[in-house]
């Protein structure tokens, strides 16, 4: 039993080491000698433009559901007026970043992993190395750059769609006035909420791109190996995004509380 635990721990540590090494290599490549613009542009298009549809539908329907749930749950307690704030705060701090990250992982992350994995098992990545080209710089860095730019933008788009979806349900189905929906948002949605959403979407973007690319670059075992890696990349990304979400929520709120306390002491 102890031997088994030790074996798995060593393997996990090695995996973490390889992952960190890939991230450092990609960061160096992206900062020191950025990849050619056409490589980045291609990934910006694949990751960003091609994901707009799925992100829009996700944000829109989530906005519908949030508005309906908050109206039904809170309306009978006389709190129908908080529908807009609830939709807005939920979308900005939590659902926008996480659902966008999940959808992009499913649509783009899995495809990145499968593409790189397939290149790995057919020796195309070795061919790059044999031609004196760093595959992390050529293949992973453009995806990384596209991810850190596009995922926050997609998240913003998802949040807007969610708030708009919630507005349609609240105003046209439950007959709240537009002012009842929007006005409380200006008071209760703070800069801290917006910063939380931005930070989360950025971190999720880094996580999902690097995990999916790492899994792809470490693929072995032919076509079956590509399938296995792709599944692992999606599952690992989801788990890490959820764990990171909890840790970020705790950390950011603690920092915010601390800052508020300091500010109040100053006053």
């Amino acid at each position, binding site marked *: 039993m102890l031997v088994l635990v030790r074996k798995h721990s060593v393997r996990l540590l090695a995996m973490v080491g390889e992952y960190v090494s890939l991230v450092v290599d990609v960061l160096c490549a992206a900062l020191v000698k950025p990849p050619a613009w056409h490589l980045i542009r291609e990934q910006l298009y694949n990751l960003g433009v091609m994901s707009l549809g799925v992100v829009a539908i996700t944000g829109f329907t989530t906005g519908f559901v949030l508005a309906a749930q908050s109206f039904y749950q809170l309306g009978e307690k006389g709190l129908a007026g908080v529908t807009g704030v609830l939709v807005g705060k939920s979308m900005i701090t939590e659902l926008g970043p996480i659902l966008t990250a999940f959808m992009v992982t499913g649509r783009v992350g899995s495809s990145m992993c499968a593409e790189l994995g397939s290149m790995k098992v*057919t020796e195309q990545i070795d061919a790059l*190395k044999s031609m004196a080209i760093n595959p992390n710089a050529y293949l992973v860095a453009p995806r990384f750059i596209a991810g850190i730019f596009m995922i926050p933008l997609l998240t913003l788009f998802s949040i807007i769609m969610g708030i708009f979806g919630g507005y349609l349900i609240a105003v046209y189905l439950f007959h709240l006035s537009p002012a009842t929906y929007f006005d409380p948002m200006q008071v209760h949605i703070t800069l801290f909420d917006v910063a939380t959403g931005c930070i989360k979407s950025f971190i999720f973007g880094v996580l999902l791109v690097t995990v999916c690319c790492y899994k792809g670059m470490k693929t072995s075992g032919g076509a079956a190996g590509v399938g296995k890696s792709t599944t692992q990349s999606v599952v690992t990304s989801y788990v890490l995004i959820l764990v990171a979400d909890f840790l970020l929520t705790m950390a950011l709120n603690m920092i915010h509380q601390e800052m508020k306390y300091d500010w109040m002491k100053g006053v």
Partner: protein
Amino acid sequence: MIRIKNLWKRYGSIDVLKGLTLEVNRGEILVILGRSGVGKSVLLRHIIGIEKPDQGSIEINGTVITALKKNQIYAAVKNMGMLFQGSALFDSMNIEENTSFYLKQHGDPVTGKPFPPEDIEQKVKEALAMVGLEGTEHKMPSDLSGGMRKRAGLARLIVYRPSILLYDEPTTGLDPITAQQINELIVKTQNELKGTSIVVTHDINSALFIADRLALHRDGQIVHVADIETFMKIDDPIINFLRENLSNRPRKEPH
């Protein structure tokens, strides 16, 4: 000159290379024979810097590449090329893009500047003509047969005229006529580039056609290296088997 000293490599619990030592002279074609799975391809991957040994050293033209850091290795292997067993053409690019890839990435090795597009086009045309693949520029690798892919892989290699060429099982899985075409191309490339070539194969007929010297790889080591005549006289179970199963074909210079 390539000097490999006491090379060790372990995968899991298996030692694939066990203190392998080998010297390859400048300008020769050395063919390494051996059974499948003995680590012949692993050796090539070490020479070109894809793998790092657990122990031992590889010196290429005075540079010990095994002592270099990852980014330094990329610079050190710029003048080398490898033909992979499955060709390893980039399947998202057509044949022209595959062939011009190295030139576009690295530019002119002398001036360090990018090649003008018309120069690249000319070099690609010449390389494809050399391997008999004129007119396939806009085809995708998936549109080509196995033999054509091998030749396209060779074109991608010779277009940048590397001084050290590594061939991993160049004729495996090909029909005898296509295999012979590949053999002739290897000799023709060698005559043209005057480089150093290492060919890994288990096809003795192919080996006899292209080799200047032969080496036998067994149990993670090079157990015999000699010129063809001396090699074929060695009393070794594998060489005896090869001798008995040989369809004698003299080496010919390609037209």
